[in-house]
């Protein structure tokens, strides 16, 4: 036992004193999390993503009312914050990036609405800015529907009242009043919905999920790095065998020491950010990340036992990681994928591992999934030992 601990200690000491390993295990993951936070925080933020300007070319009491309603409406979209701007500044502000787009209320817009004429509303934005395009088009699509419904109902009132003798003289007055009421109705449309938000249930669009997926990406590469090192130390491992260690013992002891390093990274980087996001942390999350690490080690060991050339081994493993991250929900949100691509994402380990982590947070652990991970880990490790035998 002492001999085994000594081997682990030797491996740990070698790793701790190796700047390259420290860089790969601690510094680069930290930089990754910082970079991801900078780049994607806006996509997972609860607040509006960007400012969009509103220009009032009509300048009537009705259009002023319309603008006020838009400005105070927090519920138009969670993505956009509206600000009123002057027309002459609007284009410049979009070009400089201060505003991501501008809605222009044209002259006679509300007056024409009341007269049941349609004056198109103008919308300016950088069309190759896809997130903006997505958001503003969502709004315009939604508003088009509401304006159409309102206009149809007002028109029907206009034509109906003009058919009744006792209402005929009041038709125009009714039309003006009901039009004004209906414009407010567009902005108050969501009054009928009670929104009940459930706390502490992270989803695949949440910051926590994103953090877990980035951690998965990092662990994938750290485990690959250590496996590669193990493969490189083939001669050293043979020497260790001569002092009485069995091949599988060396592999398992080295893996244990690698796991210690991964846990250092988890504690230094993952745990504080996770706690910041959720205000809680549990040992079960760390244990699950350890299980994931073991699964990944076993996968890389299996591949390395099948592929003799180091460069091909690294290239194939990298390809597996890239594909899993491109389609498993790390680099592109699952909810935005069309159905066909979601099927592809289900074929990646990242998808299942990330989902299982969410189950763990909500206390819905899927024992079958955990069992499958443990079974695959054991099977891959066993097969990798066989592969080593062939190699020897």
């Amino acid at each position, binding site marked *: 036992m002492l001999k085994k601990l000594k081997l682990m200690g030797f491996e740990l000491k070698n790793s701790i004193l190796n700047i390259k390993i420290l860089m790969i295990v601690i510094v680069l993951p930290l930089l*990754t999390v910082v970079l991801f936070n900078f780049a994607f925080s806006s996509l997972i933020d609860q607040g509006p993503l960007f400012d969009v300007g509103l220009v009032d070319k009509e300048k009537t009491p009705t259009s002023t009312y319309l603008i006020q309603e838009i400005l105070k409406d927090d519920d138009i979209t969670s993505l956009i914050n509206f600000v009123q701007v002057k027309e002459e500044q609007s284009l410049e502000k979009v070009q400089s990036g201060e505003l991501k787009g501008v809605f222009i209320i044209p002259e006679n817009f509300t007056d024409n609405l009341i007269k049941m004429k349609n004056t198109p509303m103008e919308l300016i934005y950088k069309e190759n800015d896809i997130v903006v395009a997505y958001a503003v088009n969502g709004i315009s699509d939604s508003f088009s529907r509401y304006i159409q419904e309102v206009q149809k109902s007002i028109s029907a009132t206009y034509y109906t009242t003009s058919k009744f003798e006792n209402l005929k003289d009041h038709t125009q007055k009714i039309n003006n009043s009901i039009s004004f009421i209906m414009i407010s109705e567009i902005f108050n449309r*969501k009054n009928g919905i009670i929104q009940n938000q459930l706390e502490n249930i992270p989803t695949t669009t949440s910051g926590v999920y994103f953090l877990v997926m980035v951690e998965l990406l990092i662990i994938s590469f750290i485990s690959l790095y250590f496996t590669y090192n193990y493969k490189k130390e083939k001669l050293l491992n043979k020497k260790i065998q001569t002092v009485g260690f069995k091949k599988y013992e060396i592999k398992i002891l080295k893996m244990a020491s690698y796991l210690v390093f991964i846990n250092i990274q988890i504690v230094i980087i993952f745990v504080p950010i996770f706690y910041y996001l959720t205000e809680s942390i549990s040992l079960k999350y760390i244990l699950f990340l350890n299980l994931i690490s073991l699964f990944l080690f076993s996968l890389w060991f299996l591949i390395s036992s099948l592929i003799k050339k180091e460069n091909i081994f690294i290239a194939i493993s990298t390809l597996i990681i890239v594909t899993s991250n491109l389609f498993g929900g790390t680099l592109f949100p699952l909810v*935005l994928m069309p159905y066909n691509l979601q099927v592809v994402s289900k074929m990646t380990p990242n998808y299942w591992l990330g989902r299982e982590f969410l189950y763990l947070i909500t206390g*819905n652990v899927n024992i079958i999934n955990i069992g499958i991970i443990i079974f695959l880990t054991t099977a891959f490790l066993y097969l990798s030992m066989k592969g080593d035998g062939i190699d020897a």
Partner: protein
Amino acid sequence: MLSIFKWKMKIFYSNRILILILFIIPILIFSIASPSLKITSNPKINVSIIDEDKTDLSKEYVKKLQNDDRIITTNLSYSEAVKEIEKNNISGILIVKKGFSEKIQEADNNQLLELIYPKDNYYFRSLSDIFVQHYFKDLTVNRNINYVMDNFEIERELYEKEYYQQYNNLNKDLYEFQFITREISGGESEANLFNEKNLLLYRYLFGVVFLIAYILILIQSIETKIDNKGIREKIILSRVTFPQFYLGNLLGGVVPIFLILVVQTFIFSLVSDAVFKIELLIYILLFSLGVGLLSNFIVKVFKNSRNIYLIIPYYIIIIWIFGNILVNLDFLSLVNIKGNILPGASTIEAITGIMMNFNIITIPLIVREISLTFIMIVLVTLMEYKEFKNATN
């Protein structure tokens, strides 16, 4: 020069399995995603509906939701539905509140529905408008009718009958409300073929193609390093000069990537609404050149080629973020940098813009790309010259 070029091409294509995988992956993904690219494919939200009202109107409302292709509906009890939310199998619960139908008839837009969903699900929250759209018509119609009823003395039944008749006789086409979109880049362009909701998906797929190209050319540069596979000996034996070696080495990396990208983008245009134009060849060549130089630079910086393999994940992250693939990096404007700072990123912008028929002005992008390419040429030349001298001595 030709001999170095040929060696590089030979080494590049010698790793057939890897090339095949990297070549086929994007094409496979296009083929899988292509049905979604050709239609308005909204990502769907999965909701469990509980009808507490159980009236004809509420049933009709639920039916409208079931027929909406943006929504997938299920019928679960409240506790079952919460469990499914926790498992991320459904996005939320919609409860049609008791009194829904009565309130719609009274045009009382208050507590009609209850939406229950995880606080973290910003996507679901931004789509809550979908549920309003299906009762908004009934609400507006009743508001109109009630206004007249409240202010004038008239028989309701008679008025309602006339109102619905007038409503049904309306020429609905007249009420199509339009938004005019104006691009700020100016200039005339053909009508855009793309549905805005698919733009994100297109950008993502382009991202996959170019990301793999970045990785492929880096792997090629690692594998054809001067101290690999007897290249040093070949240089000495064939007595090539530095310019010949330099050009041969660069083109040996750039040409295969250029060819692969041309084929991939062409196939992408066949299976989607993206367009392939001849001018793209220049942009793809420029992209391959910039990325080829970047890869050569990385290979020179990291002396141990095995270490470069291990930085690939971080390379991917840097490309995904700084390559301006999905998001615009506003935070860089803090240090007065606007736009792309990674070689190849500006041409990605130009290529995707052209293929997606955007009215894009490519000159500033190309100027930036050429500037970056020039910087890379200077850096790589200096480093490669030193390496070449050492190798030949």
